């Protein structure tokens, strides 16, 4: 029997919005990794003393570093939002024998995000 195997078109990921989102989300992991590296560089600069820290801040001000960080931020936001979208599907929480509605689980995730961001902002800006 000679069955036909349909080749996967190179642009298969443009066929559907959800496929495109899937590819972008896979790509977002690169930017998550970039933020980790950036944070490690920052910590390294801090541990090397005020001069190294000033140099780090100076370099971070370059337009292309800012550009990379803005793009990375957008991708990390995409990563977070889609990750949260998944959470209510993964978590089946029961309270007093009743299933907590998925919306409440989603809301709890956003609330936790907001809280942690507020704490971080407070630590940095205080």
């Amino acid at each position: 029997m000679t069955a036909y195997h349909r080749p996967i078109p190179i642009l298969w990921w443009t066929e559907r919005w959800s496929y495109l989102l899937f590819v972008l989300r896979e790509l977002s992991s690169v930017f998550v990794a970039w933020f980790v590296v950036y944070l490690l560089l920052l910590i390294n600069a801090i541990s090397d003393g005020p001069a190294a820290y000033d140099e780090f801040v100076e370099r971070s001000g370059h337009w292309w570093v800012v550009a990379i960080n803005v793009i990375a931020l957008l991708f990390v936001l995409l990563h977070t939002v889609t990750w949260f979208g998944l959470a209510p599907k993964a978590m089946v929480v029961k309270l007093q024998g009743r299933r907590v509605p998925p919306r409440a689980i989603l809301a709890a995730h956003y609330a936790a995000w907001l809280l942690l961001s507020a704490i971080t902002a407070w630590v940095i800006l205080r």
Partner: protein
Amino acid sequence: MADRITLEVARFRPELDTEPVLQSYEVPLREHWAVLDGLSYIKDHLDGTLSFRWSCRMGICGSCGMTVNGDPQLTCATFLTDYAPGPIRIEPLRNFPVVRDLIVDIDDFMAKLPTVKPWLIRDVHSPIEEGEYLQTPDELDEYKQYSMCINCMLCYSACPVYALEPTFIGPAAIALAQRYNLDSRDEGASERAEVLASPEGIWSCTFVGECSAACPKGVDPAGAIQRYKLTAATKSIKDLLMPRSAR
């Protein structure tokens, strides 16, 4: 409303064709006709050589899945009038080898399905005289949704991960494993864990979500997979942190 509609049907005759070609047929556009009725009309009146699968004509047997205008659909539950004035393109399900015309080979799924042991597993079977294993309605609700699967393969057809990594055991197989894992009468979750938590299992899934969008039975295989990811991850952490006795 026009009284006829054109169906562009993918034909693949292995003895003639090296790849599918579209052939157009005009069929009556009747209000209660599903795409499958259009295909039957072609077979009965226009071209007896057209091959396709069907059985129940009521969304139960899962054999009439095809790609209709690019989307995986049960053709017995997809109506011609929804696509009027047409034309409607009907192709075999994606991601499976095409045997002939609209018929695909799903042996790959048939081989994978038993690896997740989709049946009730008991450590010790209680004697028949003791009667059935009882279950409350709440316990039934835990897995009922997953038991609605009709093995129609629309979810595999919609899944880009399955297209790219054919070793992925896939949405329905995982949903069916969960159907038993979450059944209060079952004791086989640990036997299924190895396959489910393998790289070909849940971790292949990147939550595209198209399987759940395609499913005609509301099984939500994507949800089943994400839920098992959490179960598997929690278990690995417990295995790492807790002494064997306390698990």
